[in-house]
Every structure is written in structure tokens, then in C-alpha cells.
């Protein structure tokens, strides 16, 4: 009541008070972090060895590809779009990698081929979405079917990867102080994450991503390069999917048409649980990382328990997603 009186007395004072309060945009991320800490607390009380730092590191090891996917997906969702194709592109990437390696290509050529094809698919999708004003849902759905179909064109069988460089990468270990270790995949994922965060939060391209998500027509009238950004985010998502595909190929040492079925939904879930609004314009890449870790923690929880069926993963993710969407809705409604 007293604050509402001071509103009328001095608006500038109110502005100053507001300036000091923690920005509301960190609230969803803070909620995710709190939940993550809570789950770890519960886990370590219940199961022995749950609180081991290596368990945390393993979250990164097992979800490196999901983190890379999440980075691309965050860009797309921040513009208010969606990319359903990422799971299929991961599968296609494993297939291209496995088949070219089988055909005797050098690893570097394979990597370039995979990254280029994924990026091209993303760019194509972005062009269709922007210039033909096709709903991102539909355009990426089309690419999802296309990429999955192309997998079968390459082979219906699973193709093993035996190339020396890939196996070395897959079995490699990066030691950390204190006797802990991670895989090279984690290093790649963290580097991708860092670059993504830098672009999103420090560059004009990144800020324009937010502007487009806030109001595309305003961004256009402000003279910002909306076309570049809209095509750009799908290109980035395509590139990230291809990279995630390479990591997944290394993780499973195989290429298979049925890899990563439904993974696009995991990526979207991670982004949303990380506090990014599906309508675009609000969210942090850091949130996506915590979203990925939270999904990983649920899986760890269930594997530690041993008695719970794996369906509990889905049930908990579903519940969490629902809760987060409602929380976001409440937060944004208050803002209006």
C-alpha cells in the first residue's frame, strides 16, 4: 500500500527502486537452478554416491549432444520460431558420417560434409520460413520428414563406425583436477555453448534475435536486419544439429536411421524448462544449459534408484514442463 502511494508522488524514485531489484528475466533461470539443487540434495540424501562431482560431470558427458542441440534451439525459439527437424538431422548426420567413413573418407572430409549438409538444410528451412512466410512449425516438420527419409535412402541398417580418429575421440578422456574427467565431446559442447552465449548476449546479431522475438514488425521498422537474423537462426540450428549428430555418432560409434527419434522434443523441453519463452524474446542460453542438466538429472535419479521404470523419466519431464510453462505464463502475465 505504501509503495502504491509513492508511485503517484515520485515516479523517478520508483524507477530507481526498480533498477535495484533483481531483473525479472533471471527469475525463470533461478527457478530451474533451485530445482536442480533441490533434486541433487534429495538424490544425495537418498542414494549413496549421488552427490559425487563425477555424477555432475557425467551429466555433461551423457548430454553433450543435447546441449549443442539446445544452443541452436534457443536461438530459434528466441525469435519466436521452432525447429522440429533437429532430431532427424542428428540421425542424418550420423548416417552421413558412418557411410562416408565406411567408404574410406578421411575423418576431416566426413566432418566437413556433415557440417555443410546440416547447415544447408537449416539455411533452406530459414529461407522458406522467412521469404515464403511459412509457419516455422510446418517448414521444420517438412525438413524433419525429409531428413529422416534421407537416412533410409543411405541405408536401412545400422552402420558401425570403426575409423581410428572417431573411436579415439569417443574413447578419449580429458582429465580434470581432483581425479575427475570428461570426454572430448563435453569440451566441444562447452565451447559451442560459450560461443553461442557470446553471440547471443554480446553481439548485434544476438540482440537482434531478441528484438525479432519481442516484435518482428518493430524490429523491421527499427531498421534491423530481420531477414538475416531469421534465416541465420535456422542456419545456426542446422549447424548445431549436424555437430550434435557428429557427437552422437561418436557417442554411439554408429550411424542409424532410428537414432535420435524424438530428440527435438527433448531439446525443446530443455530450452523451455531453462526459462525461454516459446513466444520468443525472453530467455537466456544459461537457462538452456540448466534445462539440459535437469533432464539429465532426472535420468540419473531413475538409474540410481533402479526400481523405477524408465517411463518415470517421461512422466517427470512432462510434469516439469507443464509446471514451467504455467510459471512462465504467470510471470509474463504479471508483467503485462
Amino acid at each position, binding site marked *: *500500500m505504501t509503495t*502504491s*502511494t509513492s508511485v*503517484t508522488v515520485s515516479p*523517478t524514485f520508483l*524507477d*530507481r527502486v*526498480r*533498477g535495484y531489484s533483481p*531483473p*525479472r*528475466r533471471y527469475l525463470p533461470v533461478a527457478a530451474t537452478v533451485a530445482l536442480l539443487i533441490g533434486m541433487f540434495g534429495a538424490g544425495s540424501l537418498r542414494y549413496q554416491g549421488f552427490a559425487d562431482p563425477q555424477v555432475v560431470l557425467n551429466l555433461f558427458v551423457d548430454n553433450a549432444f543435447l546441449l549443442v542441440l539446445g544452443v541452436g534451439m534457443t536461438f530459434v525459439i528466441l525469435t519466436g520460431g521452432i525447429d522440429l527437424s533437429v532430431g532427424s538431422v542428428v540421425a542424418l548426420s550420423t548416417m552421413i558420417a558412418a557411410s562416408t567413413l565406411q567408404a574410406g573418407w578421411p575423418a576431416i572430409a566426413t566432418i566437413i560434409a556433415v557440417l555443410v549438409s546440416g547447415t544447408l538444410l537449416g539455411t533452406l528451412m530459414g529461407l522458406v520460413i522467412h521469404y515464403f512466410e511459412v509457419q516455422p512449425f510446418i517448414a521444420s516438420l517438412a525438413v524433419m520428414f525429409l531428413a529422416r527419409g534421407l537416412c533410409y535412402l543411405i541405408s536401412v541398417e545400422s552402420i558401425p563406425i570403426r575409423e581410428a580418429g572417431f573411436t579415439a575421440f569417443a574413447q578419449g578422456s580429458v582429465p580434470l583436477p581432483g581425479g575427475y574427467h570428461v570426454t572430448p565431446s563435453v569440451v566441444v559442447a562447452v565451447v559451442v555453448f560459450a560461443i553461442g552465449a*557470446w553471440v547471443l548476449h*554480446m*553481439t*548485434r546479431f544476438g*540482440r*537482434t534475435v*531478441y*528484438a525479432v*522475438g*519481442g*516484435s518482428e*514488425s*518493430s*524490429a*523491421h*521498422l*527499427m*531498421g*534491423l*536486419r530481420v531477414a538475416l537474423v531469421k534465416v541465420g537462426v535456422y542456419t545456426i540450428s542446422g549447424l548445431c544439429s549436424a555437430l550434435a549428430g557428429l557427437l552422437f555418432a561418436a557417442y554411439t560409434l554408429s550411424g542409424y536411421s532410428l537414432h535420435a527419434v524424438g530428440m527435438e522434443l527433448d531439446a525443446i523441453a530443455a530450452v523451455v524448462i531453462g526459462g525461454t519463452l516459446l513466444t520468443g*524474446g*525472453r530467455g537466456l542460453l544459461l537457462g538452456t544449459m540448466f534445462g539440459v542438466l535437469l533432464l539429465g538429472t532426472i535420468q540419473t535419479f531413475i538409474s540410481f534408484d533402479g526400481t523405477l521404470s524408465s517411463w518415470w523419466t517421461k512422466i517427470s519431464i512432462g510434469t516439469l514442463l507443464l509446471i514451467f510453462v504455467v510459471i512462465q505464463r504467470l510471470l509474463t502475465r504479471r*508483467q503485462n
Partner: protein
Amino acid sequence: MTQVTTSIPPPAVGTPVVEMRGISISFPGVKALADVDFRLLPGEVHALMGENGAGKSTLIKALTGVYTIDEGTVTVAGTDHRFTSPADSQAAGISTVYQEVNLCTNLTVAENMLLGREPHRFGRIDVKAMNRRARSVLDRLGLSIDPGSSLGEHSIAIQQLVAIGRALDIDARVLILDEPTSSLDADEVAKLFAVMSDLRDQGVAILFVSHFLDQVFEISDRMTVLRNGKLVGEYLTRDTTQLTLVEAMIGRELETLDRLEHQAPTAAPDEARVPLLQVLGLSRKGSLQAVDLEIYDGEVIGVAGLLGSGRTELARLLFGADTADAGTIDVRGSRRRFRTPRSAIGAKIAFSSENRRAEGVVEDLTIADNMLLTLQAARGWLRPVPQRTRDRLVEEYIKALDIRPPDPAALMRNLSGGNQQKVLLARWLITQPELLILDEPTRGIDIGAKTQIQQLVAKLADEGMSVVFISTELEEVLRLSDRVVVMRDRAKIADRFNDESVTVAGILATIAAGGAELKEEDSDA
């Protein structure tokens, strides 16, 4: 132009910085601009005048590259340009503040002001330098807000000033301000005008659009008048009177305005008559305290009061858009209970919402479809209105209300605000209501359409329709109504016949007096 020495700096008659020749733009069903010439000289404030739908916004968007022009040429500083995007025109030194605030509320104030030309260091945005630069521009506008705060936290007025700040930061040759003052208070307008004068003295050409004639005469040096997408003429402000300007804008003499003003209110209702609507103790928790109201046939009830005084809430309760907690409504002596607008429509009550865009207009339908919506809904979906009746009704109302363009197939979204309002009025008039509730029917529309709507209300009342007329403009309320109801703090505080003794000042005093005793409650609300 003859050179006259006055206190106003004479517009430099030299090479125009912007010259538009023979500009034509068409939208499906609407010729928005036809062969319009326009020039803008450096160091002048040039007002672009015209009614809603005259083509002002279209001309501006043609200049800023939002719309592509069908015919004509645009020359900026001597070079021909063909702008295809706002970025193009910005690059040519044209900076624009559009009518609706076109910023991103999810970004910070500084980002909104500087995005697209933000300071960089080592390839990254230098946030500190950006906030500093934003700070200095905000200081010029007399705004003490944190450049790092999110834009969405601020009021529309501040957002509007931030949009102006964005335009100021560019060292623009041409600054376009489309209705920049509509959401500003007097102090903020004064500050804006000071900044505009400064820029003018520095040689910037300013294009200014406003519905407030006083403001136009205060700040502008020259004006161009458009009507129906055509050029009427270019005038020097100091050689023009408000009367000649308005006549140029609406293309006819202004006597109608005066005639309406002197129209005698209809005779006081006979006590013995049964009122059309008798309302007793109508209230709703948190939105309206108990209100009594009687409305007789052919009566215009003006509802005066500040925004949020309960005017709209009263209208919504009468129409069943909200449900009342307590109180009764009698229509012609029989008790009715309106739980939904549908039951109110059944009792021949019509309500035109103040929120035209969200609660009235269906943008993607044609004029004809928009007009017939309520009639069709009232008849039920299984009894379609015969095509011939439809055509006849639509044609009749387009003609009666002077809707432009007079094309039943024109899309609603391409109409100006005033014409949209007329279509909405037609929508209700077609259902032949006995009580017409109009909530802010003339807000945001130009003087020509406004006069037409006021005349229409007077005519309808003469024909026996009762009208509840809600408006923020007290002059308008007094000009039209037979009885004036004054609202304050969600309660009715006065209800009196509109005779000679009722004045704008008197109503304001009533509102203010009601405020003195209710001050305690105010801070609680």
C-alpha cells in the same frame, strides 16, 4: 512564397531535402494515395494534416520504405531513392517515430534506442558506452529513467519518448514524428517541442503529424493537407487560421459543427412515461458501486468522468458483458437479467466498445461482413440474411454514414480509424436497437468523422432512439446530451439535465469535489 519577417524563423526557401512527386499507392480495394506531391525543406517543422484515412500514414510509410510506391519519385538531398525497407531510408538520413510505439518491450531502454548502431568494442557491444549514450539522449528529453531497465516496465508515454530518443540519436537530416504527442502530457509535449525547435535551428527537416490543431499551430512552420489520398495544398502556418485548415481537411464548411452545438436539448421527459430502461442499484464488486439510472426514449445520456471512473464498467453491466452482483434492470417496465450480451441484444440494446481494435473490428473481413455480423448473430446461424437484403442494408449504411471507401468488399484492415468506427456503428444500427451505448465512439478519429458521428447521434435521438454516450471530451458530452451523468471512483456522483447551467468547468468541479471526500479511498484502490 512572400518573405515576411516575424518572430517565427522563416522557412528557408531553398532546395528541399525531401521531394516526393506524383506518389501513388494502392491496396486491394483502396487507392491510398493518388498523385501526391510533397516537399520538406531543411530547418522547418512541416505538419502533414488530414483526416483519418486521408493518407498521412501511408505517405510517411512510402517515404520510409515500409510501403513500396506504385508510381512517383522520391528524392532525398538531390539523389533519387527507391526505398524498399526502413533500413534503406534510415541510411539516407531519415529517422522515424511511428504512430504506435514500435519498439521491443523485452529489450532494455538503451538497446531500444541504439540497436542497429550500438557502440562496439572488440567485436562486442559495449554495454557501458551504449547506456552512457542513451543516458545523454534521455537527458535531452528530460527523462530520468535507467537506460539499462527493460522497456516493458515503463508507461506508454515513456516508451513513446524512448522512441523519440531513438530517432534523435541518429544525426538525421529528416525526422518524422507521426502522432508523437498522443500519449504525452502537457509537460512532456513542451519538452518535445523544445527539442524539436532545437533540431529545426540546427537545420533538421521535421515532418510532424498530430490531431491536436493547437499543437500544430504552435510548432509548425508549414503544412501540407491531404484529403482522400489526394493533395489539397501546401500552406504557410502563419498565413493560415484553424478554420481554413479544418475546412481544407474535411473539404466542406464547418457550419454543421456550430449548428449541432446550438441544438436545443429535447424536452424533459414526462414523469408519467415508463422509462425505456430503469436501473436500480446496479453494482459489481470491484468495478462499480450501486448506480441508479433512468433512460427515456429519444434521450441522449452523456456519461462524463475520467478514465477508470467506472464509465466503461457501467456500459458493460448494462449490456451484460459483465454480470452484475446486485441491482435490477427493467426494460419498459419488465424485469430483465442480462447475463450475456446476447440477452441484452435481445432486449434491443447495442454496445459499441471503446476498444475498437480488440472488441469490435474483424480486420480480415470486408466492410459488408463486419456490418452484418450482429444482425446475423441475432437471427441465428440457420437463418441467413438474404443476399438482396444484405446488399441493400450495406449500401444504405455506407451511404448514410459516408464510409470511405464506399466499397462493401474493401477489407476492414485497410480502413482508417474513423471509418472503422462508422462501420461498427452501422453494425449496431442495422439491428435497430432501442438503446445504443457508445463508449468513446470518437476517440482517435479526426474532426470530420467526429462531427459526422455526433450528428448521427443527434439524428438517431430525434428519431426516438435512446443513446448512452460515453466520452472523455466534456465539450462533446455537453454538446450532445440531454442529461449528463458524472462518474467518479466507480460510482455515479451526479445526474442532471443538460441546460445552460451545466458547463465544462462545472463538471470538472463536480469531479474534483467528489475527489476531495474520496481521497482516502483513492490510495487504497
